[in-house]
């Protein structure tokens, strides 16, 4: 896949997409820092983004190698959808943290519980809405949506486990 990107993409395309990735990570980091002023959150957001990129890439590789799905231009949308959901997820946690941060000792147990609730909600919405879409399509569009839905649910739960690692009670 990397070979294909290097050989067949124009330098302009490679540069713009690399810049896009860098700018989005910078934007998210800046946003997280400005809204939470918490290093743990910043680290969590960056790890989450990194793992999202890795999971998406591995998902594409596996789909291509095992199921022989050709990763075409349509799959450009998968990282965007995953990014949007990830921003929503991180945003929800920051919102919850901000509403509770006046407490002297932030209750990370509650935060984890809230994350669990959010993860379930996002998963239910994703599964139900994508399923209603999947029954009407076939071919490459079906593969694209199925893979995107699987990756979405997967990244949501990766985030959930990341929270357990990052926000342990002190």
């Amino acid at each position, binding site marked *: 896949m990397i070979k294909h990107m290097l050989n067949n993409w124009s330098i302009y395309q490679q540069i713009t997409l690399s810049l896009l990735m860098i700018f989005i990570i910078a934007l998210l980091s800046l946003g997280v820092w400005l809204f939470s002023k918490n290093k743990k959150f910043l680290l969590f957001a960056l790890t989450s983004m990194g793992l999202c990129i890795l999971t998406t890439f591995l998902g594409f590789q596996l789909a291509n190698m095992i199921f022989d799905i050709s990763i075409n*231009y*349509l799959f450009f949308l998968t990282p*965007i959808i995953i990014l949007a959901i990830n921003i929503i997820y991180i945003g929800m946690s920051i919102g919850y943290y901000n509403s509770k941060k006046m407490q002297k000792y932030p209750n990370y147990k509650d935060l984890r519980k809230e994350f669990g609730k959010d993860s379930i*909600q996002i998963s*239910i919405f994703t599964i*139900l809405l994508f399923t209603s879409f999947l029954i009407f399509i076939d071919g490459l569009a079906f593969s694209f949506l199925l893979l995107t839905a699987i990756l979405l649910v997967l990244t949501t739960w990766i985030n959930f486990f990341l929270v357990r690692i990052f926000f342990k009670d002190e």
Partner: protein
Amino acid sequence: MKIRFKFSKKPKQNINKILKSILLVLVGAIFISTVLISLPLTERISDKVSFNLSTKNKDYWSKEYVVSVNTTDKKELRKIKQIIYKRLRNYGVEKVSIFSDVVSDTDSEFRIVVNTTKDKELVYKLVSNQHSFEIVTRKKDVNFDDTENPYAITMRDNYEDTEWDYNDFRTVYIPKSKLRTSDGGRQFFAIFKPWTNKQSALTSFLKNHKGELLGLDIDSFVYPFQVQDIDEDSINQETITIAVYVETEEEARVTSLLYNSGHIKVPYTLKEEINRETEIISLDYVKLSIGLAISLLTSYLYMLIFKYSSKENLLLSLFTTVITLSIYLAYLKLTHIAVDTFLLAIQFILMMIFIKAVSDNQDSDLFVSLILILAFILISLLGTGIMMTFAQGMIALIALAKVSSILTRWYIDNVKKI
């Protein structure tokens, strides 16, 4: 018999209440009309107003262009690929794939595959033109007024080279609208802006040729233009302004892309055009709408049964979702803007999740909305064709969701009070 009007203690409050009730009824009626317009097949109810959803499915076409270039240099080939991609991407071509092969010791070939809804002629123009340009002066011994040779004016051989070509101009600016010409008509113009270090040299060049007819050679076809009269003492920084012979704004945009996407230095010729099967994801949007509506309701029912959210929150976010998507769909239907149903469905799914998330977590509303809008702006600026279309739709939907959220909150609060 005397009729007496009885006023309550606070007549002003009563009038306000009546006015508010009328306003609520009106807003409610607008909501219902919007939902009805947005629903599939409701366009069949009325013969007078046409508001069917226009889809892009019929507009899609696909072609493979085979282009020959007179070089095998890898660096040069990469540069040409970049220029063609930049032209097509900035024009908004949804899918572009470019493959290059060295076919002989001196020549290479590009296979440019497009799958798009954009104008065929203009895509052809972007793919087939080398668009290498230079400024030329007239040869003194050529009779340009010869009636037997009307094409003398456009033939490259009748002109002398100058030191001015594409390397000397940082940009060629074509204003979006037509400008007034000296004869009172309107036309598009290209303004050639030189690099800062070449500005004074260009001004001297133009002063030396003031009032003369020069030519702009583009791929060996010369477009004549007249240098305006410049006062010798003028300290203005002069630029070259040439009429662009196109009619529409879109054609002018394409011409601007040809000038400003980079310059192909080596000979470049279109060899072949092959029609290809179009890659379209056609959806039955009626069935899809029903499916999405059922899934949305099921999700909300699940949240209600298992008490993931309060009833008020669920009502508010469901109402906001319905209003946002209805306004957007109604707008698309009434303005006949052609849409990609597949992209629209994905955008709607994302919006359903977004609205539910921010309604439940008001504290995260600002962060999520702001970062998402900024991220989508970045994607629409730097992304590929399909990413740009998707991101632009998402920006509009998020902005609309914010307005709808305020409206629905106001509506529900006031209805409750009544």
